[in-house]
């Protein structure tokens, strides 16, 4: 029995990113508090806001926060899908588009006009169009509408406990399940 509780031979490599999200899910990840120490026994990090590695290498697990709202999101999401054996949608926006998807009832032109011309306090009279800037998709999509996604952790954000429970289940080879109070869409 004891051997089963030992950490895996090598640490699992995890990458995380926030696409069209608010970094709230990443904050929640940090909210794991002392559980982080237990988690770090099991995993190490590749590309992530925690490491500042710019591109994702081969990983066991990819955690995606945020929906897909622009062309850069698509590139990053594809990079993760190509490199991560298991891809997880982390939080409401990745799962169903979340609050950014509230714009889906509106035309992109209206959205940009509102943001760059009509908003109180905005003084510019142009929509930025530098080639460095990613273009908006006409709708915000959950990540599973763009690539295949293996697992979903709902919540806005999912609690640190929920993320910890899910990841430790996964690492141990159990089908991940959230306890009732961890199961939240808000």
């Amino acid at each position, binding site marked *: 029995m004891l051997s089963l509780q030992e950490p895996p031979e090598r640490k699992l490599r995890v990458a995380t990113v926030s696409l069209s999200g608010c970094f709230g899910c990443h904050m929640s990840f940090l909210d794991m508090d002392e559980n982080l120490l237990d988690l770090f026994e099991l995993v190490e990090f590749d590309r992530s806001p925690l490491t500042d590695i710019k591109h994702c290498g081969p990983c066991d697990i990819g955690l995606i926060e945020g929906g897909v709202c622009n062309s850069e999101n698509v590139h990053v999401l594809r990079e993760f899908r190509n490199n991560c054996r298991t891809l997880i949608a982390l939080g409401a926006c990745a799962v169903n588009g979340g609050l950014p*998807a509230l714009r*889906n*009832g509106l035309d992109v032109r209206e959205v940009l006009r509102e943001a760059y011309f009509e908003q109180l306090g905005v003084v510019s009279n142009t929509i930025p169009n530098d080639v460095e800037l990613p273009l908006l998709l006409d709708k915000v999509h959950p990540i*599973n509408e763009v690539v295949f996604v293996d697992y979903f952790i709902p919540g806005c954000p999912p609690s640190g406990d929920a993320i910890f429970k899910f990841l430790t289940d996964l690492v141990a080879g159990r089908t991940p399940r959230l306890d009732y109070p961890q199961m939240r*869409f808000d």
Partner: protein
Amino acid sequence: MENTFIIDGMPIPFEPGQNVLQAALAAGIFIPHLCFYPGLKPNGNCKLCTVIINGRHVSACTTLANSGIEVANNTPELNNKRRLMLQMLFVSGNHFCPGCEKSGNCQLQALAYDLEMMTPHFNHFFPKRTIDASHPEAFLDMNRCITCGLCVQASGEVDKKNIFALSGRGMASHVVINTPSGKLGDSDFAMSDKAARVCPVGAILPKRRGYAIPIGERRYDELPISSQTEFLTTRET
């Protein structure tokens, strides 16, 4: 035994005239449901309460309890189907829980928690729906409407006002308001109406109340809906 039937091997007593769902809830057995509400005529459209009796899938809310029938309810097969139906409801409307006052008290959400719906799964329809803020006390957000028809029934059967009706067909089915303008503000709707309290989702909500109950104390925060059969029987808080 007389006036007893079986759900998943458990004997359930019933009173003649009760449907399978009512009898189950009264006996503390949960069957998922959205479009059934105590005191209103069952109409059987959400299909969440689908159970198997004699090998046939039927709606528990529109099937009369009968001595000796054997009902399959809490089975992986049925719960998979119910989860699929919940996913259909989520993707066919615009359900963004973090921005909804009903979150934590929402029956659709509670069922999704209980049946462990981790993702809406299908491609979202992102339909264009209307919001009606014309009434002084209430607003209607059709983004969240699941066309269960409870407001239609409550307004007709209990309030005797007939303010709501279902119109359209297929995916274009939607609730309409019985005023020349089509606006709720031009009706005699009041927050004291039964119709104001039966919506299982956040489509009919009071104005000027925002997130009044702290997270953790809302109806479905701690206790799954499947453990609240007594509440579901009476709906009195």
